[in-house]
């Protein structure tokens, strides 16, 4: 990915910012400027997702390009956010065997990749299992 292409969407990647149709309530991520259901009658407004959701399906990546090689094996999942839209993102688990369909997850801020030792560091949203912290 080019630096400018990443850069233009940086806030939306960091903060799970999408849009919402005020007519039917449907939410979009990545953001859309047009509601396919309501067409011109729907007004589109910014909407920030809470970052909680559920794994719909996933795959385990065991071989990856240089930028991600140090992180293999890792889980890449399609997550249905509680507000509706589906996003593709990495789920960070202790062991890839933990991942399962229906797993509850929450968003975290992590390094997505780097361009070698001297290039840009890409940050963004990943997910971790949404387990409550112990008492105390």
């Amino acid at each position, binding site marked *: 990915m080019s630096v400018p292409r990443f850069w233009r969407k940086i806030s939306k990647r960091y903060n799970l910012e999408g849009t919402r149709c005020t007519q039917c309530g449907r939410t979009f991520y990545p953001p859309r400027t047009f509601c396919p259901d309501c067409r011109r009658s729907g007004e589109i407004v910014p909407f920030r997702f809470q970052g909680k959701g559920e794994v719909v399906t996933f795959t385990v990546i065991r071989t990856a390009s240089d930028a991600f090689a140090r992180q293999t094996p890792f889980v890449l999942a399609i997550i249905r956010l509680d507000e509706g839209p589906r996003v593709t993102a990495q789920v960070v688990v202790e062991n890839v065997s933990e991942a399962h369909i229906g797993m509850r997850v929450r968003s975290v*801020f992590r*390094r997505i990749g780097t361009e070698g030792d001297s290039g840009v560091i890409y940050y963004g949203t990943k997910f971790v299992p949404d387990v409550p912290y*112990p008492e105390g």
Partner: protein
Amino acid sequence: MTGIITYGAYIPRYRIRLEEIARVWGDNAQDIIGGLGVREKSVPDLDEDTATIAVEAARNALTRREIDPGEIGAVYVGSESHPYAVKPTACTVGEAIRATPAMTAADYEFACKAGTAAIQTCMGLVGAGMIRYGLAIGADVAQGAPSDALEYTAAAGGAAFLIGRDDPIARIHGTVSFTTDTPDFWRREGQNYPRHGGRFTGDPGYFKHVQGAAHLMLEQAGTSPGDYDYAVFHQPNAKFPRRVAEHLGFTPEQIRPGLVVPELGNTYSGATMVGLAATLDVAKPGDRIFVTSFGSGAGSDSFDVEVTDAIEAGAFRRDAAPTVRQLLSNPIYVDYAHYAKHKGKIVMQ
């Protein structure tokens, strides 16, 4: 009066036991654990660094209290492990909490006290009426060269404090600093790991500066150690803060909640900040907290803090974000090989 509006901490879930590090280098584990008073230390995940830790700590702070991020006029991140040599971590944090673009930002470096220096800067800007809120963060993924003494304690973590004037959960009655030019610990530009003056740097470095700042603070506040419910000192190991507390006249009970180094290790710029966060986690309205950081090079910042009724009021929800104790619980232990992978530690000094 200027004070803390909200706060949050973050600690990665991975840990390595000092026993495991000693095993690899053939050191006597019991001597080292006994000498340092540290049993284990935190290790960042493969995709965690100072920026991600700073963001998570800042988000935990903002989870505890509803603040319009657009009102945050300054973000300062203190660290000695900023991901870039040139490109501020503070900009990434500002973007990730939606405080951009109407804000000032900078990264701070002053060994382990860059985070408390950030609190002082925010106090000044807030006090002068230039900004409504300022966010001060101390975070590090601390570096220690393989087999160096620092490797036993260099840990990862951080804490964020939102400074402002409106209804603070804790007032900061005053702050003073004590600074000299002392070569006790350093890292030259381009080097991967810091170096230090050896084991005898404690007296001219840590003890001289922590005591210097603490005495100035007590004098300015007109207080004595007995006036405080809690005290937090920079904690490169458990021995130094215990000894300095004793020299100054603070009791082991006063430093207990904020002494997290035995299970966390030394989070450098995060250390005093996480200790203060852990103390605020248990503090009650009216409690008074004495705080003194230390950064090699060298200097100490001291603070006189008093917890207000707002810490238990509706606008501030302490249990909405994890406490330091909760962040320390349920760790995942790694062996040295995993640890080296997590730290990207293949460069030998």
